[in-house]
């Protein structure tokens, strides 16, 4: 065994760790005869069975993250957002990862985690949503036109990277403004009095139209999360959560099909370039 020299001698630091994990979210009431077994659960004080009887799923989801039940507008916004984001579509890399896992007969419990990891990316994925929220929270007090002009002045067109985003949550998809994302945003904004950040995002996206840019799905999610009062730190995971149903559905759809149900690129179309 190597004797550490003086400068490598290891001593534990005086960090003080907590004795118990703490939570403000969930309380489990123990059974009288078994302290490991919960007989009741409460979410921010509300009994689970009451929530099941009287609330919708979006209301309880909101409660989990905000600590209070939402009002009517907040409920409507979250529910519409959940539907709007429910499926990134069969061409999104995350969905295709799920489909690959499905057709590849990957263990069924891995299909969703695999897709969610891919959805964690910084291009149209979860890692873009938190920066987008931070951008929006700062920018919302300034005129959209001014912000657009400033960002466009700094934006450099790169031929090798034509979809490079102008700023997190806004830019081009396949060289154009994403019409579908803008449509989702419009459906959210149509809820009366819904929130200032979505409205600002709409005006900002309008300024980008002449550059063939606009909302991206990640920006729509970020703006809605701002208006719902969610913390930026929760944004990546919430985006993954809201997109999860579609990812899973596409993966499962392929799971019972033969491996030939997805294309296999032939050797003729497989080009090795610059290999050394």
């Amino acid at each position, binding site marked *: 065994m*190597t004797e550490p020299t003086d400068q490598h001698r290891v001593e534990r630091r005086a960090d003080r760790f907590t004795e*118990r994990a703490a939570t403000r979210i969930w309380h489990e009431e123990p059974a009288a005869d078994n302290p*490991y077994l919960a007989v009741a659960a409460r979410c921010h004080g509300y009994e689970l069975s009451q929530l099941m*009887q009287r609330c919708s799923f979006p209301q309880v989801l909101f409660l989990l993250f905000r600590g209070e039940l939402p009002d009517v507008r907040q409920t409507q916004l979250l529910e519409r957002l959940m539907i709007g984001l429910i499926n990134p579509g069969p061409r999104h890399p995350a969905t295709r990862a799920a489909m690959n896992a499905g057709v590849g007969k990957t263990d069924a419990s891995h299909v969703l985690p695999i897709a969610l990891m891919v959805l964690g990316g910084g291009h149209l994925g979860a890692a873009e949503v938190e920066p987008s929220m931070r951008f929006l929270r700062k920018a919302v007090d300034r005129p959209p036109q001014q912000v657009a002009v400033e960002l466009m002045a700094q934006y450099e067109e790169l031929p090798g990277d034509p979809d490079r985003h102008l700023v997190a949550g806004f830019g081009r998809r396949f060289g154009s403004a994403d019409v579908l994302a803008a449509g989702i945003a419009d459906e959210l904004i149509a809820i009366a009095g819904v929130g200032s950040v979505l409205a600002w995002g709409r005006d900002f996206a309008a300024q980008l139209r002449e550059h063939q840019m606009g909302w991206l799905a990640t920006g729509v999610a970020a703006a809605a999360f701002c208006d719902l009062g969610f913390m930026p730190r929760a944004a990546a995971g919430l985006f993954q959560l809201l997109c999860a149903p579609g990812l899973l559905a596409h993966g499962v759809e392929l799971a019972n099909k033969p491996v030939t149900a997805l294309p296999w690129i032939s050797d003729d179309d497989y080009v090795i370039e610059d290999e050394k």
Partner: protein
Amino acid sequence: MKNRETWDRQRGVIRSRKGGWFAGKGAFSHGYSILEELVGEASYFQMLTLNVLGVLPERRLADWLEAVHICLSWPDPRIWCNQIGALAGTARASVVAATSAGVLAADSTMYGSRPLLDGVAFIQQALRDHQDGLSAAEIVQREVQKHRGKVRITGYARPLASGDERIPPMEQLTTRLGFEHGPHLTLAYAIEEVLRLDYKESMNINGYVSAFLSDQGFNAEQIYRLFAMVVMSGVTACYVDTLERPAETFLPLRCDDIDYQGPPPRDVP
């Protein structure tokens, strides 16, 4: 509509700068025939480096990388990524799910592979500053000032403990394999000397790896990529340990082992 060429050119075609498998011809990585030139000839870490970075390193560098991977993954389930492996075992997840989950956990700003990005960035910038005339003491002073007098330099002042017992065996191996101290490692030691005298802190394994591999010509992103799976074996070990015991017996919690600090019971309106 402009510039859809980028995507049209890629439809239905895979262009690879890596290699591939062609039935009847073989499998290739960066021009090497994997089965004819590498199996039985290259070590796993040589192959890993070839696949990840596109260069086949000399054997001694691959052996150094393998050794430092041994330093960086221990079967102790108190370490966060390993505990995820242990929890996966007690919950009867698969070994691959457990190991992947632990590896993913180590993609952390606090420990695992990602801090190497900052560690390498620091020492490479420090060397540029040093070559521009800053002394090690001045570099330390600047960094400490940034954090109101505290030593917050990635690669130094290890969390949880002071000192780092992993460095001496790696230093011995470095010498045995015949590597010289390059400018990054030399500066890293000079910085450590300042920290040791003024702050009673020392270099940690991140700092050593960052400086040594910088001297080998790698950049931060390349090093991060090489260490993607660094915690793997310890996670799997902790998984196996709990898998082979009754379910949910790894650190079981009674209801009141959780400190509930939320609102008291209330009725749903």
